[in-house]
């Protein structure tokens, strides 16, 4: 097969509902009580790519994100219909432990939330409780190096993670997620509370991480979506209006709504 053929195939896989995707939502509908928040959402994420989820406030981006690692399970009124497959396994199958899913599908929150504990413990806690057995010093070092934090904090690993700056804290949270060796990293507006320099660092980091992980990032910044992602999905009132290659979504969207949103006319 020619390289271009492979690329084409890959592209097809990214928004076609194929079985080769890492994570695939299939006709997902979500209710909070009587309030329907997601309507028949289908999306498929392929390996080692960055997906941006954009759309106006309240359209259900965070809800969709939290469906992928079953963090919505903790909401009492949450009701889920449809299917989400992770390497072909339905993660809402009653036989599947949500904890196992959350191990492989990590999450980074809008506000950096390191544990009020040492930097060292922040990284090694989750692998440890999940029964991974390895050289913790090494794990801490490699995880921090991957997020470019090692040089900044290597001399104070025993100090509290809360003593770091906001941007450093967010990178610590990413390092903490990476330490679990997940397949997918979900990021819900990871730069929303950061300054431009920290934001640039995180974006750079996303660029590197995509070599190993699939990343789904929710963002309100069009520039960020364009800079960081390979594929984008535009959501509006609980539906995915359009998704595809980021360049297409921003430069030649098929839908009028998408065009209006990316040009800042609705939001």
């Amino acid at each position, binding site marked *: 097969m020619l390289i271009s053929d492979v690329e084409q195939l890959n592209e097809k896989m990214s928004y076609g509902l194929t079985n080769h995707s890492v994570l695939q939502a299939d006709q997902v509908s979500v209710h909070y009580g009587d309030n329907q928040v997601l309507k028949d959402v289908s999306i498929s994420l392929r390996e080692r790519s960055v997906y941006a989820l954009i759309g106006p406030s309240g359209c259900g981006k965070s809800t969709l994100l939290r469906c992928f690692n079953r*963090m919505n399970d903790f909401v*009492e009124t949450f009701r889920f219909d449809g299917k989400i497959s992770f390497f072909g396994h339905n993660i809402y199958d009653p036989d599947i432990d949500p*904890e*196992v899913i959350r191990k492989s599908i990590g999450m980074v929150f809008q506000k950096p*939330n390191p*544990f*009020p*504990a040492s930097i060292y413990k922040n990284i090694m806690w989750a692998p440890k409780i999940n029964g991974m057995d390895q050289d913790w010093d090494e794990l801490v070092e490699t995880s921090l190096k991957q997020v470019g934090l090692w040089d900044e904090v290597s001399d104070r690993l025993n100090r509290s993670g809360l003593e770091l700056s906001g941007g450093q804290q967010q990178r610590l*949270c990413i390092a903490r997620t990476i330490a679990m060796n997940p397949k997918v990293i979900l990021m819900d507006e990871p730069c929303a509370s950061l300054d431009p320099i920290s934001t640039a660092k995180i974006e750079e980091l996303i660029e590197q991480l995509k070599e190993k992980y699939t990343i789904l990032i929710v963002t309100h910044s069009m520039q960020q979506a364009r800079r960081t992602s390979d594929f984008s999905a535009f959501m509006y009132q609980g539906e995915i209006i359009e998704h595809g290659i980021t360049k297409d979504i921003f430069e030649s969207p098929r839908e009028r709504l998408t065009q209006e949103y990316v040009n800042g006319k609705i939001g």
Partner: protein
Amino acid sequence: MNTSNLVLIRKNQTDISDVVRAAYDELTIGKKNNLKRRKLFNTLFRCLCALAVVLAVSVLVVLLSSVFIDGWQWLDWQFLTDFPSRHVEKSGIKSGIFGSVMIIVITMITAIPIGVGSAIYIQELMRESWLKSFVKTNISNLSGIPSIIYGILGLAVFVRILGFDRSILAGALALSLVILPIIIIATSEALAAIPNSIRNAALALGATKWQMVRDHILPNAWAEILTGVILATSRAFGETAPLLIVGALSYAAFVPEGIFDYFTTLPIQIFNWTGRPQAEFHQLAAAGIIVLMAILLVTNSLAIFLRNQFKRKII
């Protein structure tokens, strides 16, 4: 173009000074109108608060000093190491101290795990529902029930039905009932103060609720929980009514040797002496009060020290 710019600047300048003047006027008018009155109220309020403090402290000082004047002459080693007796000079509080310490230890052993455990269950594990708010409301209500009611319950359940007789165990269990609501409420509040972002962080990393509670919620809440436990302990230490109902002795010339022995406690001993007609026994009671306060002071200081140790470790 230069001149027009200049005009613009001039204009801006007058604009700015107008704004400043307006602000100044507002301030000075404010001063004339009600600033004085507000300041007066502020001073008045401060005086009232200070008065309340002075009142509370002076009552305390009067009480304490009268206790000390009455009791200090009887305070000696013999007072601590002798059993109570009909003869004032041979009387002591040995049985009361032993009884109190044993009761408190058993009360804490039963009440802390149950109280903290219940709070964890209610606050961290229970689903949001009418049942949860029902349980929480009722626990708040339970903390307001007079302790003598718990004494009656203890008499019925522990002394009669379970057959513990008038033992230390029965007394301690009755006291546990009294302080359980306090511990549960304090612990719930301590847990509620932990931000949800920590819970999300732990759960999103694949932790179970138990791992989250054990490694992140409790370590951060211990200091606060301990504060509640200190309060509860002090309350239990001074509690008399439920123990009298359960059948504590008011005169015991022996040291209890096990949890099924009869017992008396320090507050009961004090209560007993104050009921005697002779003034000397009232002075003995005062001496007992001094010892009781000293013990409370020492245990509370120790607990506060421990609490601060906990706090330092977290941040």
